[in-house]
């Protein structure tokens, strides 16, 4: 089987990740719930993972790395916890439903108004639009670092400058880029960086989190057990516990820590170059096959290792199913939880077949996928 659905989740994980989860399941008590060796073992591993992530993302403090079950929960926490009645928020057409739906909900529940920086038919946005959309009520820019459909990236330095200049909160969805592209919260003026553990960070599903700039006030989605200040009626505000009510996914977090360590040991640039090469080779070949249309901006220097395409007017579901049944190649068809992006690309009806590459894919696998597309197009 050739797995090319890494933008959904990375299937192949470094062996260290699997070992770390197994070890954790054999050793870990409940973090922050006592000081016997087993509880401390959990606290230590979770703390180490916070350190690794704060270092990876340039988060000023490890205790401002908050763990959630995925980026969806992190985005909901950030958006729900900071946007108030009547605020205006700027986002983009590139977003995933994990950004859009929390925003649409606030539109209904808190009379929040929304503006979207439009994407063109190549899926790219115009940066001047961010400033044009600003009103006196604008509170935040919420935007993705990379489109999960086209692989197009957003220049976070540029958007961050705009957010800083106009004193807006800057909330970033790094689901598709964390671990592959450099992210520096300080340099990019990011207030909240949301990430998921199970994609390019190589962690288990059920891990993810948010890095929070010190000094922000985020109202938690949930309150409850914290292991501290048991007799107070109000959940403690200090981070990370303020946004982490309930027992953490310690076993998963141990795996996520091992994933980040693997990235650091291997070298993020090394990983990125390999993945970019696979995507580039695939793109260069398939874009020449008659009847294939590829979506996204391939002139850009930097892009996530994703190639979304359609074959003639075949249903993307049919093409993806043929790839799976006839060639054992796993891709994702249909709509990719990015409704505005499909509208911009004109693929609402057809969907798109998405090929997404990872460090564990080989160039041979890419050539097999190219051959498969050539055969299917005949």
């Amino acid at each position: 089987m050739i797995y090319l659905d890494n933008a959904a989740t990375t299937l192949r994980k470094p062996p260290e990740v699997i070992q770390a989860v197994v070890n954790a399941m054999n050793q870990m008590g409940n973090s922050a719930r006592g000081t016997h060796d087993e509880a401390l073992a959990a606290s230590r591993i979770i703390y180490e993972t916070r350190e690794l992530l704060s270092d990876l993302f340039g988060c000023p403090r490890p205790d401002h790395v908050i763990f959630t079950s995925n980026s969806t929960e992190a985005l909901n926490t950030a958006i729900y916890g900071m946007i108030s009645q009547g605020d205006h928020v700027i986002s983009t057409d590139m977003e995933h439903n994990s950004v859009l739906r929390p925003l649409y909900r606030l539109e209904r529940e808190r009379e929040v108004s929304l503006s979207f920086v439009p994407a063109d038919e190549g899926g790219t946005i115009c940066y001047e639009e961010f400033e044009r959309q600003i009103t006196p009520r604008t509170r935040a820019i919420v935007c993705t670092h990379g489109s999960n459909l086209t692989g197009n990236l957003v220049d976070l330095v540029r958007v961050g400058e705009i957010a800083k200049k106009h004193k807006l909160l800057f909330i970033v969805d790094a689901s598709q880029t964390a671990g592959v592209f450099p992210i520096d919260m300080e340099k990019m003026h990011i207030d909240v960086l949301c990430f998921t553990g199970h994609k390019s960070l190589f962690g288990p599903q059920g891990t993810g989190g948010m890095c929070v700039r010190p000094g922000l006030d985020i109202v938690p989605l949930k309150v409850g057990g914290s292991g501290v200040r048991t007799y107070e009626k109000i959940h403690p505000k200090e981070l990370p516990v303020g946004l982490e009510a309930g027992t953490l996914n310690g076993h998963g977090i141990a795996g996520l820590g091992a994933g980040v360590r693997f990235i650091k040991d291997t070298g993020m640039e090394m990983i990125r170059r390999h993945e970019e090469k696979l995507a580039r080779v695939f793109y260069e070949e398939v874009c020449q096959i008659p009847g294939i249309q590829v979506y996204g901006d391939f002139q850009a220097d930097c892009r996530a290792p994703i190639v979304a395409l359609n074959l003639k007017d075949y249903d993307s579901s049919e093409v993806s199913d043929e790839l799976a049944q006839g060639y054992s190649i796993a891709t994702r068809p249909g709509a990719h939880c990015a409704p505005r992006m499909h509208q911009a690309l004109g693929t609402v009806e057809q969907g798109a077949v998405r090929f997404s590459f990872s460090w564990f894919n080989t160039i041979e696998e890419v050539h097999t996928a190219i051959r498969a597309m050539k055969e299917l197009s005949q």
Partner: protein
Amino acid sequence: MRKKELKYLVTFHTTTGAMAMEKYCKQQQLPGRLIPVPRQISAGCGMAWAAPPESREVIHSMLIEQKMDVDGEYEIWI
């Protein structure tokens, strides 16, 4: 691409519904498999059970009997 065939399709509101369907059909040795939902159909979840049209009757009565979480039933060329 392969030739189109006529199929009997069942769609579900949720992925859980599709999983229940697959498990039950396997147990009972009913024909078919899960495929991505074709675009002609707008359905709750991204999966559909595709089976030969001859099996429509027996599967249809099973869906009712087992109270499967069905969104729709179709016969289409895919």
